[in-house]
């Protein structure tokens, strides 16, 4: 377990400090969908929520318990979905998270939990489209 700021990529550090989207969905119209994955033994618990209006995702937030890479991954995924919708989310998997965040190999397990939560979200969101 490394806690050296120098061992985290600048992107992870920025996302960790700001945690963009670590929030509740703002009140609004339309439908809501969520996706959650819990793996305490692997050190990660992530929940995504989206609001869908007119078949399009108009907001995406997350909640997470996990290491800095996990939190940064969740924040990054939420931002991608906010900007790119379901298509944006569908283009993401754990390997891409590893690359985007410059995460070390031992973090793969946790980022797979993020991917699980993302997949669960996208399944529900697609069902609501």
């Amino acid at each position: 377990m490394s806690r050296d700021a120098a061992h985290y990529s600048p992107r992870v550090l920025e996302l960790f400090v700001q945690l963009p989207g670590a929030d509740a969905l703002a009140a609004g119209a339309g439908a809501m969908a969520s996706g959650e994955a819990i793996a305490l033994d692997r050190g990660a618990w992530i929940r995504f929520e989206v609001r869908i209006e007119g078949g399009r995702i108009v907001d995406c937030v997350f909640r997470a318990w996990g290491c800095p890479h996990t939190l940064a991954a969740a924040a990054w995924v939420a931002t991608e979905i906010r900007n790119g919708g379901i298509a944006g989310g569908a283009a993401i998997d754990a390997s891409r998270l590893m690359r985007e965040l410059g995460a070390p190999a031992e973090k793969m397990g946790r980022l797979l939990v993020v991917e699980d939560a993302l997949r669960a979200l996208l399944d529900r969101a697609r069902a609501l489209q």
Partner: protein
Amino acid sequence: MGDSQPIYLDHAATAPLDPRVAAIMSECLSDPALQANPASAHAPGRAAAARIEGARAQVARLINAPPESIVFTSGATESVNLAILGAARAAGAAGRGLRHVVTSRIEHRAGLVACRQLEREGFEVTWLKPTADGRIDAAAVAEALRPDTALVSLMHANNETGALTDIDAVAACCRDRGVVFHTDAAQSAGKVPIDVVASGVALLSFCAHKLGGPKGIGALYVRRRPRPALQALQFGGGHEGGLRSGTLATHQVIGFGAACALASGAIAQDAARIRALRDRLWLGLQGAAPLWRNGAAESSLPAILNVGFAGIEGESLLLELDGRLAVSSGAACASATAEPSYVLRSLGRSDEAIQASLRLSLGRGTTATEIDRAARILVDGVRRLRSALPAGALERIA
């Protein structure tokens, strides 16, 4: 990491060198009259040896031991190994058939891994479990003793929780049964009063760097009468009564002596002040409730507060604190490897609770201002991370 030094609350890993000790050591390093080998018979050698004997007396005084009973080592790890491996191997080799050792599951790795090595060498080890508040019962020790018990080795103060063992009681029961008792006092020496004569322990390990002295020097107290048999770990010139060969490092020994002398005079006062600061810290941390304390509040070292924060992930908390607060996590206390603490595990904590825990350890230099700032940093950090938690996590990560 900012430009200024973080608040240091990791004194149990190592205490900063006392500036008075640093000054004495620096003087010694550049004193032309103290450069010789203290084992040399010539005048400059004798001058160095004389200073070493002065320091030996200072070190001995800290635990009320006669100076001749102090063996200098390279640190607590070596002392603990010399005591455990040394006593067991001597008892095993003596053909007395004593091949049983009693220890606990919450020893520092030095003791723990030394005992594992004894298992590899054919010894049988009884691993005592701590009580829920992290203490080893003297009664449990008495029960574990067998006719073939060579050694009981228990730490005096636990390095993660600060929990204290009643070494007087254990020593008494070992003495009655003719068993050698070693205690690892690396955390307690200089922090709480120790009197080896009154308690009757056979072997006691400690080191300088936990009490304001230099790293790389320690001592093993070896009772004179009756004298426990010990096999050396390293052999050579026969220094230290044959128990520990190798050139003594004059400046290190002098620094250790100076640190012990300073500690000897200040234990009661330091302890009271530090305990009050720890209580203040605990109070300040209530702003980060729900939280819990690992280990007993009573019969523990005044300087250690091991605390867990519900819903917190350890690595994120440490990054949150990085550069502002220097503390040890529940996952790795200044060891070279990182795993969930076996000490907290044996107190019955879940792995989630362990990684949500921090060991905060205060020292002589800790100030109330630092404590208040540290509490604020911790409370703010915990709150920020909790603000991102999924519903239910606060209850499940605890």
